């Protein structure tokens, strides 16, 4: 043991699985082994250039526009399906992984690599804010994290204030369509997403993304249907409003009759799934459900501000409009 080594300074963080992790004080190389907005978090916290390995981001062309180097970053796998040797070869200071892949994470820890877990799909609004803070600590970007949390808090408060005027009888019943017409979501995030925007999730009894019968939807008779753009039956072929209107089983539903059918937008990430950007998604949904109640929300401005502040990117009107046409994302 003659090699001279300067012991790196370390710090400890408590990650989202409640585990205390030792990470280098200075994090310069990051490998991401999950989706769920982890990459976006790193980007908005200003550490995009430190990512040396992560799963493909081809689903997010808007993100690739201002982080084009992501196209060439090696993919060392995701969740439990990771290549340990490849990650060792990339010599990361820390791996950002999901709380849902303990097997893969453990293997990395055994190889002596610090693993910090994030909530990915299991996030709630509160959880997400905690996660921003934790990531700020890991990346030494506490200020950026606080700015982000501040943005969230102010918008959440605004939503809450405006929604105060919504009486129970004015609240709209929302059906959140995941990929195929009969699958919906009543899990933590699906619930937060809709209720924060002032809606009632008709599927609140339904735990996770699950299939229901056509009759059930007929009985719920939702006022509005929102269609996820991240879990299509097919890639870039999400459910279209026309498809529902032409479906004889659906024609008698209020939402279809009144043409209250909306596709969830895609920004730098899916707006209906947890990520730093999902606050924009919540505002979009609130405005969509109650254009009058939330008339104060100027989504274009909010989005522009978010992208300017956190992505350091000036969004054009055209780019903003493209967010609402998920099909175009693939082109």
């Amino acid at each position, binding site marked *: 043991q003659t090699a001279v080594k300067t012991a790196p300074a370390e710090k400890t963080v408590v990650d989202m699985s409640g585990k205390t992790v030792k990470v280098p004080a200075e994090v310069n190389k990051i490998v991401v082994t999950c989706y769920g907005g982890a990459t976006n978090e790193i980007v908005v916290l200003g550490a995009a250039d430190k990512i040396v390995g992560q799963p493909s981001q081809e689903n997010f062309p808007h993100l690739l526009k201002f982080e084009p180097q992501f196209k060439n970053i090696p993919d060392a796998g995701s969740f439990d399906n990771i290549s340990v040797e490849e990650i060792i070869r990339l010599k990361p200071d820390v791996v950002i992984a999901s709380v849902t892949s303990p097997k893969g994470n453990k293997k990395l820890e055994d190889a002596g690599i610090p693993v910090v877990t994030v909530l990915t799909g299991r996030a709630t609004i509160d959880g997400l804010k905690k996660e921003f803070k934790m990531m700020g600590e890991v990346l030494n970007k506490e200020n950026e994290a606080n700015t982000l949390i501040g943005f969230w808090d102010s918008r959440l408060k605004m939503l809450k204030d405006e929604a105060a005027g919504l009486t129970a009888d004015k609240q709209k019943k929302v059906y959140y369509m995941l990929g195929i017409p009969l699958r919906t979501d009543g899990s933590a995030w699906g619930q937060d997403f809709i209720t924060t925007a002032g809606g009632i999730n008709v599927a609140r009894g339904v735990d996770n993304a699950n299939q229901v019968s056509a009759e059930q939807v*007929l009985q719920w008779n939702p006022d509005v249907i929102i269609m996820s753009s*991240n879990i299509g039956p097919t890639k870039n072929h999400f459910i279209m409003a026309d498809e529902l209107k032409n479906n004889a089983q659906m024609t008698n539903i209020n939402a279809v009759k009144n043409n209250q059918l909306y596709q969830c937008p895609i920004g730098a990430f899916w707006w209906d799934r947890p990520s730093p950007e999902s606050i924009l998604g919540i505002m979009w949904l609130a405005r969509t459900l109650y254009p009058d109640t939330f008339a104060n929300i100027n989504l274009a401005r909010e989005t522009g501000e978010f992208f300017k502040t956190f992505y350091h990117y000036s969004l054009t009107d055209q780019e903003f409009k493209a967010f609402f046409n998920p099909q175009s994302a693939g082109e």
Partner: protein
Amino acid sequence: MELIKKRNIFQLIFQSRDGLRVIKGGALFALPPLLFIISFTLGRYPVSPDLLLNVLAAKLLPLQHTWPDTVDTVVFQVRLPRIIASMLVGAALATAGAAYQGMFKNPLVSPDILGASAGAGFGAAIAIFNSFSIIGIQASSFLFGLLAVLLAYAVSSRIRHDPMLALILSGILVGTLFTSGTSLIKYMADPYDKLPAITYWLMGSLAAVAPRDVLSVIIPMLAGAVPLYLLRWRLNVLSLGEEEARALGINTGRLKFLVIVCSTLMTAAAVSICGVIGWVGLLVPHLARMLVGPNYKVLLPASILIGSSYLLLVDDLARIMAVVEIPLGILTSLIGAPFFLYLLQRSRRGWL
């Protein structure tokens, strides 16, 4: 001609000594229509029996339309296609299973044995992966189901030794290949996006069946079922084994090919509208054999009657049990397996 055959079926069913069998025979014929009617009143959306009668009558008589339009939608757009589809699929899988069990001289064989389901599943997965429309998924599923079986058949024909075992082995092989292909697609699919779609699709469900779907499978199903039904006597002879059947005057090569094509048409069509529903093709022929014996002259009709009733019953359960639809593939197994176990233990002659 048709009349004579029908009389024979009755004759054979009722010929048995014990009166119990007469009742069983009658029950067999009464069951499907009975369940058909009952099933209309079941579901998450409440439709009372007399409202149902009104709705049905209104299709024929100029009744006053006092109920909401939604009721019409529920009855004709949601329940009717679903009931018909489940009966069709149940009958098809049971028929294919019965035919295969005879052809392979093996009571453990199911219609999937030559890779039809595996192929159809792969076809669906690849269609989902490549963003096809729903109709595209169905077509791809059907075609790959056929392709898988034809491939297995082609491969087996290059093996000289013991053609039946060769066929089964080739089928298992091709099936595994397609299943791995499906896994590979699942694996390559974005876990946030395609994976759940593919996984759920493979579990099998009739929840989304539309009238159009029923129309699109009725032709391949009839094209498969009618020849098999007509060939049912020859299935008896085939079940004695290749050599003996040939000595008794059967062109086994051609008959086997016909049985395979017909069974595959039905299986692939079934998978293409409602995903992989295992177990029916294995269970129902056994059940039928316990009730009416191994003679295909009665076994095949009995399988059709029991198969359609069984799947309809299970699907009724799926519809009424919970808000969330439990996939039919899961339910058929969860109900079928213990039921089958019970039968096995009770029956005097085992599974025969």
